[in-house]
């Protein structure tokens, strides 16, 4: 109602689908954490995953860049395609995938290195820069994109861990965008931030939408409503409802969604 959704939904074709998940199952040992989730994530769109704690939204998010590989007892089944390519195919190297699908975590986790090195790390290991000048350029561009350049440009050599919580999180976003990903996964990026820092990060997410497909897991329904164009509601490992954010928040189709977003079930 209040959002302009002129740029979406109209004429969605295969080109606009960034991630296509079909019948995805995730197991933690014997625990069936994600059940039959099928969802199409659009390009240049912010998609929010909401749901009560333990509903599987983070688990599903982590299976999109195969971060679940790092958990030995975790098993992912089903078909997840990034631009039509199966990300779980045996020939896919998860490291290469993660360079394309960047991730920002719940707690700001800058490396205990300088601000510069934090941002430069990704480009360095992926060989994105030839020489110092080019690297400087990438670092500046990434920090600008993360709307933190003006705050840190005079102290790039200072420790990243010495920044405030909101700055740290934006630094982490800068670090994630420095590797030029195509998709940005955000796992509750604002849960440790104050409202002002949250607003800054949200503003940033809205800007990142111009270039990336952003998927954000959030506990705050207001945040999902504010930043996303698409919302997926997870409950007990099921994808209950997926649709335009405006619809989900004014007139959800499923009673479980309604109960959750109106604060009737935790």
């Amino acid at each position, binding site marked *: 109602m209040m959002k302009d959704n002129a740029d979406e939904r109209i004429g969605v074709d295969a080109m606009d689908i960034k991630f296509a998940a079909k019948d995805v199952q995730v197991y933690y040992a014997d625990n069936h954490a994600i059940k039959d989730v099928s969802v199409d994530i659009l390009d240049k769109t912010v998609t929010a995953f909401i749901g009560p704690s333990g509903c599987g939204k983070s688990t599903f998010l982590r299976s999109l*860049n195969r*971060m679940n590989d*790092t958990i*030995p007892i975790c098993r992912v089944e089903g078909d997840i395609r990034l631009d039509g390519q199966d990300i779980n195919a045996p020939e896919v190297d998860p*490291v*290469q995938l*993660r*360079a394309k699908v*960047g*991730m*920002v*975590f719940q*707690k700001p*986790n*800058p*490396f*205990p*290195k300088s601000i510069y090195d934090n941002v430069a*790390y*990704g480009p360095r*290991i*992926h060989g994105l820069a030839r020489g110092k000048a080019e690297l400087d350029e990438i670092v500046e561009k990434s920090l600008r994109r993360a709307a933190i350049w003006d705050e840190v440009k005079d102290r790039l050599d200072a*420790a990243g*861990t010495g920044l405030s919580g909101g700055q740290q999180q934006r630094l*982490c976003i800068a*670090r*994630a965008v*420095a*590797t030029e990903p195509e998709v940005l996964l955000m796992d509750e990026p604002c849960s440790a931030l104050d409202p002002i820092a949250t607003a800054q990060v949200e503003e940033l997410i809205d800007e990142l939408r111009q270039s990336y497909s952003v998927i954000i897991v959030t506990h705050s329904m207001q945040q999902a409503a504010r930043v996303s164009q698409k919302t997926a509601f997870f409950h007990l490992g099921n994808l209950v409802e997926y649709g335009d954010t405006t619809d989900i928040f004014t007139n959800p189709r499923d009673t479980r969604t309604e109960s959750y977003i109106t604060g009737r079930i935790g």
Partner: protein
Amino acid sequence: MTDTSLPQNAPRGSNSILATDARTKKRNAAEKRFRALGMGAIGIGLFFLIVLFTTIIRSGAPAFTRTVVDVQFTLTQAQYDEAEGTLFKTAAYADLFIAQLGEILAEQDVAADFDAESIERTLGKVGGTLREFYRANEDQLDQPVNFSLATSSRVDGYLKGRVTLEGIEDSRFLMASDLDLVDELQAAGVIKSEFNWPFITGADSGVDNPGGAGIGASVVGSFFMMLVVLALALPIGVAASIYLEEFAVQNRFTDLIEVNISNLAAVPSIVFGILGLAVFIQFAGLPQSAPLVGGLVLTLMTLPTIIISTRAALKAVPPSIREAALGVGASKMQTVFHHVLPLAMPGILTGTIIGLAQALGETAPLLLIGMVGFVARGYPDGFLTGFTEANSAMPAQIYTWAARADAAFYDKAWGGIIILLIFLMFMNILAVILRRRFERRW
């Protein structure tokens, strides 16, 4: 909000915050008791530490001084030639020395009564020392040379108060009359006390010469062993820990390895000694008593400690750092070597130093592979042979001295402990410095 489940103004003993109620009093008293208990525990610990240090320093201090007889001695070319011509060459030197000493004492108006035997009992084989010096330095003939001749350990003990006139029985080592001679020499100002450099730099002496025993050679032995331990245990231990902690799949086999490593840390060190003897010396044929073998044995002993502490340090690195690195597309190895390991480094170093310190103080396994005190006869010829030449280690040396009959070795053992503690202190300081450096690099 009216939440009925909450107690509504339950009656309390007193509503004033100025009056302390019984519960609070009890709680405060318990806290005070606990604090007192803690301070008492620390006090007791400090007390024992002070007792330990004063005992060590008091008992060890005598080892750092020695008593010498300072004599100016001149040997002419003619006397030299003549002495070299006799059958008992050292005896001739001794006679010359006695004559000159007599002159010195006469000058000071001290009436002394001594002969070659009493001189040998008090100053050792003076003739031999002199002859050795002049044969090496013929250019020093015909001019006065200052000799500082170490007194025998019993005379040394007499001047330090360990040996008393009443307590001794005449023997071939010392007669009561010798002590009179010492008193006279002291009156003449010939005898004096000086810092015992030979103790720090020298090697072990025979059972019958406690005065000449030094710890230097075994310090070198310990040093070479620590080099071996550091060079082997640190890389192997850290590599094993990284593999187990970061890469290995969790299954029954790795569980078994983990349990075994923990058990290994608890195995008595003497078992490693036996193992070293059987495997390194008898099977592999490595030289006995060599710091290389000692180092290998201590490496086996230290590895579990280093592995356990390194794994703890790796575990302590927050998982968010790993996720962050993986999230930007670093490989597992890049994650570990670029981020996890540097953060775990201070912990790893601490563990390593603790392991090394433990190894440094270990005696039992060394005794089994023949690194006993008396083999430390001198310094190795070169750096590399330092690993393979027979040597001792500090704790083994101290143990050997403590086991010897002559009471003079008792001082040496305490002195050795002081040197061992200083060595440990240096290692700890090094660890602190290294840790600081790594921490500053975050």
